[in-house]
């Protein structure tokens, strides 16, 4: 057995195992952690496929940003078991339906002609000098530059929309104006009053 | 407008941060003022009030006559005195305890003493190994006095002209 095959089986084991524990875990925070392990295993598998850019982007975006935000939300959540498990039976038919659809789709994809495992075959093995990131960049900025730019504009629009949704001025908001605060100079806050001698004597 | 521009330039050239860094870099090379305690000590006033001691006369007789003025004046009730008549007919203490946890080192006992028996020395770096250790009895008080007699009398002499 080659060493890479051993690595493949180890990472696959981690991948399948951690994703299984993730969906069966009762504790949301633990489930999120198992999901992170799943992402890491997936990234390792991609590294074996010489897709290091994808692998590292997966860790950077999903593990580094998305899951952190998940953890952020989980911390705020009330993780009471009873509320989480309420109405389980109500959503059960819908859940079964969705999972059936997913299974059918996967079966169709894996058995259909062009996506068949046999017709796709093993990816080509490249040498150590092969640069995945250069290949992606060449494709992305020449052939696919137009869709790429469109996707960027779509994301920009999404950002602007998200900001405008949050940026409504609240009427009774008591938030602090930081710009005003940090622009304060000592002389704005302090006033030197000159007290003449006459009033000083009177006060005595 | 000009003022605003000046402030903008100052802000973006990190003006205030540079001021701060300048101050600390100046202090970095300045002479350090730390006193290395056990080896070096800061000067102590002759009136310093530290650990207590009981003094003796030059002929070896203990000064304390058990008048209990110190016990009466002590604001923290730290002093406990018991006395009896000695064979030669003088009144002397059989017990003289000071609880150093209670003591506030006000020096009233020293002021009240008619024979300069109880004094406060310049010793301040002492420690106890148990809670009971905080109570020092007559024997150890006298020992402290014997050991530090020269320092005690010297401090008293120095301070005498201002009393």
């Amino acid at each position, binding site marked *: 057995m080659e*060493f890479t095959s051993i690595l493949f089986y180890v990472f696959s084991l981690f991948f399948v195992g951690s994703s299984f524990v993730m969906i069966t875990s009762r504790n949301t*925070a*633990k489930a999120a*952690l198992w999901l*992170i392990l799943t992402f890491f295993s997936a990234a390792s598998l991609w590294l074996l496929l010489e897709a*290091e*850019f994808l692998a*590292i*982007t997966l*860790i*950077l975006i999903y*593990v*580094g*940003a998305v899951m*952190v*935000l998940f*953890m*952020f939300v*989980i*911390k705020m959540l009330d993780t009471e078991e009873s509320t989480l498990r309420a109405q389980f039976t109500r959503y059960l038919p819908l859940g079964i339906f969705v999972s059936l659809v997913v299974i059918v789709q996967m079966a169709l994809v894996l058995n259909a002609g062009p996506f068949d495992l046999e017709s796709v075959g093993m990816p080509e093995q490249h040498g150590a000098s092969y*640069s*995945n*990131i*250069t290949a992606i960049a060449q494709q992305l900025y020449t052939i696919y530059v137009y869709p790429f730019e469109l996707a960027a504009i779509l994301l920009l629009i999404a950002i602007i929309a998200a900001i405008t949704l949050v940026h409504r001025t609240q009427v009774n908001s008591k938030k*602090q104006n*930081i*710009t005003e*605060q*940090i622009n304060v100079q000592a002389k704005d806050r302090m006033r030197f009053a000159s007290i003449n001698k006459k009033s000083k004597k009177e006060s005595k | 407008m000009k003022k605003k521009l000046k402030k903008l330039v100052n802000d973006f050239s*990190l003006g205030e*941060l540079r001021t*701060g*860094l300048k*101050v*600390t*870099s100046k*202090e*970095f090379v*300045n002479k*350090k*003022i*730390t006193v*290395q305690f056990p080896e070096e000590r800061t000067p102590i006033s002759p009136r310093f009030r530290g650990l207590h001691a009981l003094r003796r006369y030059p002929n070896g007789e203990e000064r304390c006559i058990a008048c209990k003025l110190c016990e009466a004046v002590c604001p923290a009730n730290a002093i406990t005195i018991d006395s009896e008549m000695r064979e030669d007919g003088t009144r002397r203490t059989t017990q003289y305890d000071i609880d150093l946890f209670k003591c506030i080192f006000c020096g009233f006992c020293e002021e009240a003493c008619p024979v300069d028996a109880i004094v406060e020395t310049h010793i301040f770096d002492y420690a106890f190994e148990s809670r009971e250790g905080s109570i020092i009895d007559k024997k150890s008080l006298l020992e402290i006095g014997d050991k530090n007699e020269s320092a005690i009398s010297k401090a008293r002499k120095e301070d005498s002209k201002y009393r």
Partner: protein
Amino acid sequence: MWQSFVELTHQLIPWFNGSLADILIIVIKGLALIFPLIIMMAYMTYAERKVIGFMQLRIGPNRVGPFGLLQPFADVFKMLFKEIIFPSKSNIYLFLLAPILAFVPAVAVWAVVPLGEDFYIANIDVSLLYVMAIGSVGVYGIVLAGWASNSKYPLLGALRSTALLISYELVIGFVLVTVVMVASSVNLNTVVERQSGGILNWYWIPLFPMMIVFWIGALVETNRAPFDVVEGESEIVGGTHVEYSGMPFALFFMAEYFNMIFMAMLAVLMFFGGWHSPFEGIPFLEGLFAFVPDLIWLLVKMSFFLFLYFWIRASFPRFRYDQIMRLCWKVFLPLTIVWIFVVALMTQLGIGPWF
């Protein structure tokens, strides 16, 4: 007995020649990097206390060993022998996992750091991205520590740090983009190689504002003063460290210092020409300093940035949380985006020796 042993070794020899030997070499390389790092980290704590002491007109540690040079070891042994206390109702597994998750990424990033010409553990094509990715994993240590401690101050500290680190990762990402644009490579080795040829060829000149932004971002990412709101002794006692003692705490501590060394190293690699001598290409000085090895130049430059860490810590009071956020989103982010355009322009016009 002997016969069977010989047979076993004969069976194992192909393994040793192939994969196992490779793994062994990698492990040895890793240890050879980690041990000096640990010593460095230990003496950084000493240097920090000395430098800050000096800036506050004190002397700093001077009791253990000559000039207090054995102080770090005393600290290590103290930490080792301390009791590990688990807060009641805390999740022990996650509680112990947190410091490990903080420490492992802090070490793992060092895999791609080039310490000299052809002197590295791994030379991967996406090393700058790798640095970002692994660096962002370090957040989980703090997040989990706050969550698993089952205590309010750690939770507050973790909440603060999560938001902060995500925001500043963005800024640092943009700074890296400018560096990548100038160097036209995401490989740290190439980034450094392109800066060869004296102090004027280093990227700190065309990317000067980015360098400052990066450094401030680095202070935030490593939770150092004046941005140490995660700990915030005066506000939330000790933040995520409140419930930790003994070795778990030491792991957090080590992770913080490893990250500090790494950030200093990254600043040197990206803006100060890595292992290159500042006098390259200058007629007389180049020969004069030719005897200095690459690694020494690298360490000297890095030490300056580490000193800067202590200097800044001794100089400035802690920022308020919302002010740090404002600094990130309203000052640094626009600034970096503008500078990306400036760098793009400079690249197109081919200004200076940098492009």
